[in-house]
C-alpha cells in the first residue's frame, strides 16, 4: 500500500517535470532559453520515472537495478548533446548578437579559426 503510494507519487513527479520541460520548449522565446527545458526534463523527470520503475520491480518481483545504469549514462551523455545544440546556436547567432568575449583577447572555441 505504502509502496504503491510511493510509486504513484514518483510517477506523477516525473510526469510533471517532463511536462514542464515540454512547456518550456514551446513557451520560451529564444533558442538558448529553449535548451533549458529539455535538459530539465532529462534530469528530474526521467530520474523520478526510473526510480518509480526500480521501486515497482522490487515490490512485485526480484527487483531490477538496470534503471540506475540508465540514469548514470543519461546524466553523463545529456550535457554532451546539450552542448552540441548550444554550439549550433552560437553559429546561428554569429554576426547577429554579440556574446560577451572571453578575457585577454581570446575567442570562443566555436568561433576559433584555428
Amino acid at each position, binding site marked *: 500500500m505504502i509502496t504503491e503510494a510511493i510509486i504513484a507519487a514518483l510517477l506523477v513527479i516525473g510526469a*510533471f*517535470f517532463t511536462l*514542464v520541460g515540454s*512547456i*518550456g520548449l514551446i*513557451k*520560451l*522565446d*529564444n533558442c*538558448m*532559453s529553449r*535548451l*533549458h*527545458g529539455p*535538459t*530539465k526534463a532529462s*534530469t*528530474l523527470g526521467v*530520474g523520478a520515472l526510473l526510480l518509480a520503475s526500480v521501486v515497482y520491480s522490487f515490490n512485485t518481483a*526480484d527487483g*531490477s*537495478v*538496470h534503471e*540506475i*545504469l540508465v540514469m548514470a549514462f543519461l*546524466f*553523463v551523455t*545529456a*550535457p554532451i548533446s*546539450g*552542448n552540441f545544440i*548550444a*554550439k549550433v*546556436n*552560437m553559429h546561428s547567432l554569429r554576426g547577429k548578437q554579440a*556574446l*560577451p*568575449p*572571453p*578575457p*585577454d583577447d*581570446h*575567442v*570562443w*572555441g*566555436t568561433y*576559433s579559426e*584555428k
Partner: protein
Amino acid sequence: MRARLFPHPLLTVLLAIVWCLLVNEVKLGTVVFGILLGLLIPIVTAAYWPDRPPVGRPIKLLSYLVLVIWDILVANVVVAMIVLFKSNKNMRPQWVVIPLDLRTPEAITMLAGTITLTPGTVSADLSDDGRALLVHALDAEDPDAVRDDIKQRYERRLKEIFE
C-alpha cells in the same frame, strides 16, 4: 609494480559495479567476474589515457556527486516555477563568462557537465585557450552572482578533487 597491475583503481571498482548492475544480480560469481573485468580492462586500455589526472580524494568525489544531485532537485523546482509562472517579458536570459582556475581537461569537463545538469544554466563553449567557460543562464538578475556561485560551489570542490 602496483601501478602496472592496478593502473586505475577507481575504474576497477566502477567496472565491477557496472557489471553487477548489468547482470542485475549480486552473486559471488558475478562479483568475481566483475572484479576480473575491472582488473583486465584498465590494463588493456592503459595506453589510451597517458596523462590521466590522479583522483586524490575519491570520498570527496562521492560527496560532490551527492551535492550535485541535491542541487539538481532544488534547482529543478525553482526553474519549473520560472517556466510556469514568469512571462517571457520579465525573464532575463544572460550570457555569463566564467574564468577558470581549473586546468585539467577532465575537471573542466565535469564542471561543464555539472553546469548543464543543474537547471537554469547551460554551458555553451570554452575559450580557445581553455581558460574561460561560456554559460547561458535562463533567468539571472546579476551575471556576476551566477559566476561567483558556480566558482564557489562547484569549481572549488573540483579543484580539491583533481588538483
